[in-house]
């Protein structure tokens, strides 16, 4: 087997530079997606008529079309639609936020509905208004129920973030592609990229276990 890292070594720092972009896109999208997804989930379990309908349709569309299509659409069609020339980074974060919110909203909805009805009643009986009840009593318990699912969503997003290479954003995969182009070596850059993704996923898994243990303190 032709196995030669010598030629690649000078380019390793360059591939590593992609970590920053990969992490940025993933973490920012997951945080924004969580916020937007929470709002969507709250709309879905409330009875707000048209808003409710919007949230359901939104989720359906984002879950029913390929992510790579959504990314291409946001990046290439936004200038045509609005005249604003969206940067690669903005397009990536926007797409992943909108997309992950759709998935996260369903997870959160499930988590909220799994909270004991007694909690709602206890809060109501104390005269806690709906909004406060959701934010302070129901949502924290719902999120705790779904923490493992949220971590899985983050991990999935981290891996899917490699799609941003298709619009030329310099993430890990894109930089590996560049190295491939320069050196004409395929095996080594992709192995390095693969190891980087794997290590990051493992780190995330550990962080998640730690957070989960902390949150289960009250059990």
């Amino acid at each position, binding site marked *: 087997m032709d196995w030669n890292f010598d030629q690649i070594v000078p380019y390793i720092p360059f591939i590593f530079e992609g970590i920053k972009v990969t992490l940025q896109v993933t973490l920012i999208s997951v945080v924004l997606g969580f916020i937007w997804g929470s709002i969507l989930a709250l709309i879905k379990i409330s009875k707000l008529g048209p808003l409710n309908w919007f949230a359901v349709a939104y989720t359906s569309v984002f879950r029913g079309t390929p992510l790579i299509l959504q990314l291409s659409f946001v990046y290439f069609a936004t200038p045509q639609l609005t005249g604003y020339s969206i940067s690669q980074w903005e397009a990536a974060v926007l797409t992943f936020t909108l997309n992950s919110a759709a998935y996260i909203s369903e997870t959160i909805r499930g988590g909220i509905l799994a909270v004991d009805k007694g909690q709602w*009643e206890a*809060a109501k009986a*104390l*005269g806690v208004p709906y909004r*406060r009840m959701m934010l*302070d009593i129901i949502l924290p318990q719902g999120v705790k129920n779904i923490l493992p699912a949220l971590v899985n969503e983050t991990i999935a997003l981290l891996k899917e973030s490699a799609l941003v290479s298709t619009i030329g954003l310099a993430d890990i995969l894109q930089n590996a592609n560049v190295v491939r182009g320069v050196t004409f070596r395929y095996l080594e850059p992709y192995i390095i990229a693969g190891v980087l993704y794997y290590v990051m996923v493992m780190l995330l898994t550990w962080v998640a276990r730690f957070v989960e243990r902390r949150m289960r303190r*009250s059990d």
Partner: protein
Amino acid sequence: MIKIDQITKSFGQLEVLKGISTEIGKGEVVAIIGPSGSGKSTLLRCINLLEVPTSGQIIINGQAITDPKANVMQIRQQIGMVFQHFHLFPHMTVLNNLTYAPVKVKGMSKDEAEKKAKELLSRVGLSDKADVYPSRLSGGQKQRVAIARSLVMEPQIMLFDEPTSALDPEMVKEVLDVMKGLADSGMTMAIVTHEMRFAEEVADRILFLDGGRLVEDAPPADFFQRPASERAKQFLEKVR
């Protein structure tokens, strides 16, 4: 203080309350008893609008709470409720369970709420548990915390929905003792219970419900010694 006037409640086809009228005076302790499915809990839950009556009126201190325009949140803040399964907030410490509503809903200062909460915890004998999470408490302790949580809101009325039914037998007394203390302090109370001896001892009046109707409304001495209805006689024979 509370006037219940011809209330009915239906869940779909099922009519659970079939026109109930009664009054509860200030400082009065009323025990609501009857077989399961008789509508006891539903009646209690109508008083703080956890269930909205299908028809009829409930008037508390002259205010018709069943009026669609009534401020439900405001009304509920004046009515404490204790549930069979406690329903403490599991993600908050005992102290935070007590201070949450007064601070966030009533706008009480944090210091004042904590001071009050600690007083109440000592009143229910749980001063040492302020900083633990509910999962570390026994059933009896949870229920005493739940009572204290309602009391920090300074309610005018306390509702108890089978407060000892989910407890191990040896924990029933500690909860009943707290309730008895509360009754002695002049709190207006409505208690759905299966603890006949407690009802006989503490209640000023017994409401006996069967099949969604108020069958008897009598002082405990009369009700337990000389039940007027055949249905109450049968019920008492079975439970005693």
